[in-house]
């Protein structure tokens, strides 16, 4: 129980910080929570290093940048990495930070100044052994359920969030479109798609006109701090299955879920 003290206090701090300061930037809080965790900090520095590239090169090393991003989301503690991607924002400063989270100038946009037709990255993705399964998982997990009032089946939400994060670092990497809303889209358009316009719009609509995805991101934000504690980690690493934040970099093996639940219930009470 004593070992729970650090992470629980950190959660409390995140909560108090988000409630007491109206101008509190939750994306900054998420960044600091990641910095406090040795693994998250190391993976984050790694992808920034890869995506910034060497100054001598004219263009960024896109393949290496994307690979480092996939590693970040695959190996990093899910609660911390998803918090960086889905931090809820009220103002434009927070939203701009959220938009810049995974160095989009390298990982998201380019090569070339203008976005291509969506059929291009879609084709690349379907041929890629890395991207194709992730895209299929995203289509399955974030499929809108017309019968549900919020557009998504209840227990599908965490799968949808996880599947969306799985697309970051692939050929169809999505990102927030601006710093004024939580709308997301891949870097492409459907202007010049000829007779395949329907296919193009259907693909792009998975991001721009998907109530299930919107609801899942919203649910994650309103359940702030991250409530991924009871989800099994897909990589199977025991030390990643619980919120892993502590100043000594230790894990929550000795900490039961019960001790964290009262802290998580605070948003409902406040």
């Amino acid at each position: 129980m004593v070992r729970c003290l650090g992470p629980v206090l950190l959660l409390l701090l995140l909560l108090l910080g988000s409630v007491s300061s109206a101008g509190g930037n939750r994306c900054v809080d998420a960044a600091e929570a990641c910095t406090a965790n040795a693994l998250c900090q190391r993976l984050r520095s790694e992808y920034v290093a890869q995506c910034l590239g060497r100054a001598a090169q004219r263009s960024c090393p896109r393949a290496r940048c994307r690979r480092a991003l996939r590693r970040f989301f695959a190996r990093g503690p899910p609660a911390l990495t998803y918090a960086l991607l889905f931090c809820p924002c009220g103002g434009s400063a927070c939203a701009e930070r959220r938009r810049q989270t995974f160095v989009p100038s390298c990982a998201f946009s380019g090569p070339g100044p203008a976005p291509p037709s969506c059929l291009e990255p879609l084709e690349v993705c379907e041929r890629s052994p890395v991207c194709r399964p992730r895209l299929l998982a995203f289509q399955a997990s974030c499929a809108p359920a017309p019968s549900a009032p919020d557009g998504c089946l209840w227990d599908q939400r965490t799968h949808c969030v996880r599947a969306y994060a799985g697309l970051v670092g692939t050929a169809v990497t999505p990102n927030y479109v601006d710093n004024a809303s939580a709308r997301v889209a891949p870097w492409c358009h459907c202007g010049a798609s000829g007779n395949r316009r329907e296919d193009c719009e259907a693909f792009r609509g998975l991001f721009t006109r998907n109530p299930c995805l919107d609801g899942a991101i919203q649910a994650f934000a309103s359940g702030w701090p991250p409530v991924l504690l009871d989800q099994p980690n897909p990589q199977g690493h025991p030390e990643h299955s619980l919120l892993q934040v502590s100043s000594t970099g230790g894990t929550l093996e000795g900490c039961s879920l019960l001790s964290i639940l009262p802290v998580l219930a605070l948003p409902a009470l406040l």
Partner: protein
Amino acid sequence: MAVGKVLLGSLLLLSLHLGQGWDPDARGAPVANGEFSSEQVAEAGGTWLATHRPLTRLRRAPSGPCQLWSLTLSVAELGLGYASEEKVIFRYCAGSCPRGARTQHGLALARLQGQGKAHGGPCCQPTHYDDVAFLDDHHRWQWLPQLSAAACSCVG
């Protein structure tokens, strides 16, 4: 005369007591997450809880052996000219090094230093470094390679 001795003794005891209260206590963990302000030492959970108070100036050399220390700083406090809302963890090496070192050079030097024939002594130095990255106030990524110490050792 006796009164003077009693006063002196009590003054000595008092200063000793105050000195002990000030001394930043190493936790005994390989990475000492001890913050140096006396209020911060008392708080559990380490580095995240007292970041809003400015760190008080340290008055004496750290007691204890050469080890890794951890500070949570705002980016501005690094003094490198960057501005960001984020806080970073800065680790460094400090502590005393025993006279006996592991190399031939160290052994010979230790003996000479003990005899007063040579200056200085082994230093507590980092052997590995970590990179630090953050998003600055203009929403540009900054990457500072090898900024923070990752491991310490007595060198020289």
